[in-house]
C-alpha cells in the first residue's frame, strides 16, 4: 500500500521530464505535416496536418532529398564499417600482441583525446585541398577511420578475453586471419555492435567537417543540406521540418530497436575523456 502511494508523485514527475524530453520530437513530427504559415501560428500544432507529401515534394525539389539521404547513408555506413575494422584490428594488436613501440603509441593515441577538434580541422582542410579531395566523400570518411576511442574500447574489451581461447584455435592449426574472424569477432560481437551504433550516430549527425569539406549541393549530406536550406532567405519551414524529422527520427527508431547497444556504446563514450 505504501509502495503505491509513494510511487505516484515520483512517477508523475518522471512522466513530466519524459514529456519535456520527447515532446519536442512529437512536435517536430507534427510540424512536418503542416505548411510554413501554420507552423508559425498559435496554438502549436499537436495534431497531424495534410501537408506532409507537399512538404516532402518541395524538399526533394530544393535539395534533392533522395540523393542527399543516399549520400548521408553511404558516408555513415562506410565510415562506420571502416572505423570498426580499424578499431578492432588495432585494439586486438594492443591487447594480445607485443610489438615495438606499442606502449608509446598507445599513450600518444590516448593523449590526442584531450586535443579539441578545432586544432586539427585547419591542417586537415589544407591537406584535403592540396590533394584535391575537397568536395568528395573520401574527404569526409578518411579522417574518421582511426578513432582513438574505438581503439581504446576494443583494447579494453579484448584484454578480458582469455589468451587460451586464441591459443586453442592456433593449436588446432588456425592461421592468424582465421583466429581473428572465427574466434575474436564472435566474442567481441556485443562490443562491436555498441561501437557501431556509437560511430554511426556520430557519422549520421556529423555537421561541421562536412560543411567545411563539401562544396556542391549534389555532394551534401542531410545536415549540410538542411543548414544551407535554412540559410536561404524566406526559408520554408514546412520543408525544413520534413528534413529535420528525417534526420532525427530514424535515429530514434534505431535507438528503440537497439537500446542496449546504444546505451552501452554511449556510456562507453563517457569514458573517452
Amino acid at each position, binding site marked *: 500500500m505504501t509502495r503505491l502511494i509513494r510511487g505516484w508523485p515520483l*512517477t508523475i514527475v518522471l512522466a513530466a521530464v519524459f514529456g519535456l524530453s520527447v515532446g519536442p520530437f512529437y512536435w517536430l513530427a507534427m510540424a512536418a505535416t503542416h505548411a510554413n504559415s501554420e507552423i508559425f501560428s498559435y496554438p502549436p500544432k499537436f495534431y497531424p496536418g495534410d501537408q506532409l507529401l507537399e512538404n516532402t515534394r518541395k524538399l526533394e525539389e530544393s535539395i534533392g532529398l533522395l540523393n542527399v539521404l543516399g549520400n548521408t547513408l553511404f558516408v555513415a555506413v562506410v565510415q562506420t564499417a571502416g572505423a570498426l575494422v580499424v578499431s578492432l584490428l588495432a585494439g586486438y594488436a594492443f591487447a594480445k600482441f607485443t610489438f615495438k613501440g606499442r606502449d608509446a603509441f598507445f599513450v600518444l593515441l590516448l593523449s590526442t583525446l584531450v586535443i579539441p577538434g578545432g586544432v586539427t580541422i585547419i591542417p586537415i582542410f589544407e591537406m584535403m585541398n592540396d590533394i584535391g579531395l575537397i568536395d568528395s566523400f573520401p574527404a569526409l570518411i578518411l579522417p574518421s577511420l582511426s578513432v582513438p576511442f574505438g581503439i581504446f574500447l576494443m583494447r579494453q574489451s579484448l584484454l578480458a578475453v582469455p589468451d587460451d581461447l586464441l591459443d586453442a584455435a592456433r593449436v588446432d592449426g588456425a592461421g592468424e586471419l582465421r583466429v581473428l574472424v572465427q574466434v575474436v569477432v564472435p566474442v567481441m560481437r556485443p562490443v562491436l555492435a555498441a561501437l557501431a551504433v556509437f560511430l554511426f550516430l556520430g557519422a549520421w549527425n556529423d555537421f561541421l567537417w562536412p560543411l567545411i569539406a563539401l562544396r556542391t549541393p549534389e555532394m551534401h549530406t542531410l545536415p549540410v543540406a538542411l543548414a544551407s536550406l535554412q540559410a536561404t532567405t524566406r526559408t520554408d519551414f514546412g520543408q525544413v521540418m520534413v528534413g529535420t524529422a528525417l534526420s532525427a527520427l530514424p535515429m530514434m527508431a534505431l535507438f528503440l530497436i537497439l537500446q542496449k547497444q546504444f546505451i552501452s556504446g554511449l556510456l562507453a563514450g563517457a569514458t573517452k575523456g
Partner: protein
Amino acid sequence: MITRRNVPYVLILPALAGFLVFKAYPILAAAYISLTTGAGAARSFVGLDNYVRLVNDPLFWTSLWNTGLILVVQVPIMLLLALVLALGLNSPFVRLRATWRLGVFMPSLTGLVAYGVMFSVILSKESGLLNWMLGFLGVDPIDWLGSPFWARIAIVIALTWHYTGYNAVIYLAGLQSIPKELYEASMVDGAGSIRRFWSITVPQLRPILLLTIVLSTIGTLQLFDEPFVLTGGGPDNTTLTISLYLYQNGFRYFDFGYAAAIAYALTLIVAGFGLLQIKLTGGRK
C-alpha cells in the same frame, strides 16, 4: 604473408597510418600555422604575433568570459538535475521506469542541425512552443534569441535539454552498480534515507560524479553547437564562445594562423581545467 611474428604490425598499420596523417601531423602543423599569417604560397612566419594579438583581442576575452559564464551556470544545474533524475529512475516505487529512461535519453541522440532547427522554432518569440507554454503561467513572450540576457539563458536551456538525460543514464548505471548489501547493512544500523544518500550513495558514486564533471567541463569549454545554430554568437557577441570564435576566424575570415592560435589557447585551457579538477577533487581516474 602474415605470420605470427609480423601480425601485430599488420594489425596496427591502418590505425597508425590514420593517426599519423589525421592526428599527429595536423596537431604539429596547427602549431606551425599558429606562428604564421596568410595561407598557401602567401604564408609567412610571424613568430608569436598571433598569440600577442590574442591576448590583446577584446573579442577573445569576451568569448572566454561567455564560455566561462555558461560553464559555471549550466554544468552544476545540469549535473544536479541528472543526479535527481537518476535517483528517481532508480527508485523501486516508480512505475514504467524503462519507458521514462528511454525518453530522457533521446535528446542526446539528436544531431546539431536537427536540434538547432527544432529549438530555433520552439524558442521563437512570436510563435514558439516555449512562450506558448509560459503564457499559461502568465509570462509575457520572451525574446529568447534576440535579447542579450535571454540568449544566454536559451543556450543554457538548450544544453540542459540536450545532455541531462545522457548524464542521468550514466549516473543510473553507477547507482545500479552499488552493492545492495551496503544499504541493507546501514538500514539495520538505523540510518535514514538522507543519511544513506550522503554516506553510501555519494561516496560510491564519486568516481562517476568526477568523470561527468570533467567531461561536461571539457565539453562546455569547447561549446560550439548551441551558439552556432541558435544565436550565431549574438546578439552583440553575448553568446560568442571560444570555439565559435575559432570557427569564425578560420572559416569565415580564413585567417588560419589566428584560428590555430585560438585552437592552441583552447587546448591549454581545456588541459589546465582537466588537470585542476582532477587535482582538486583528488580523484584517481
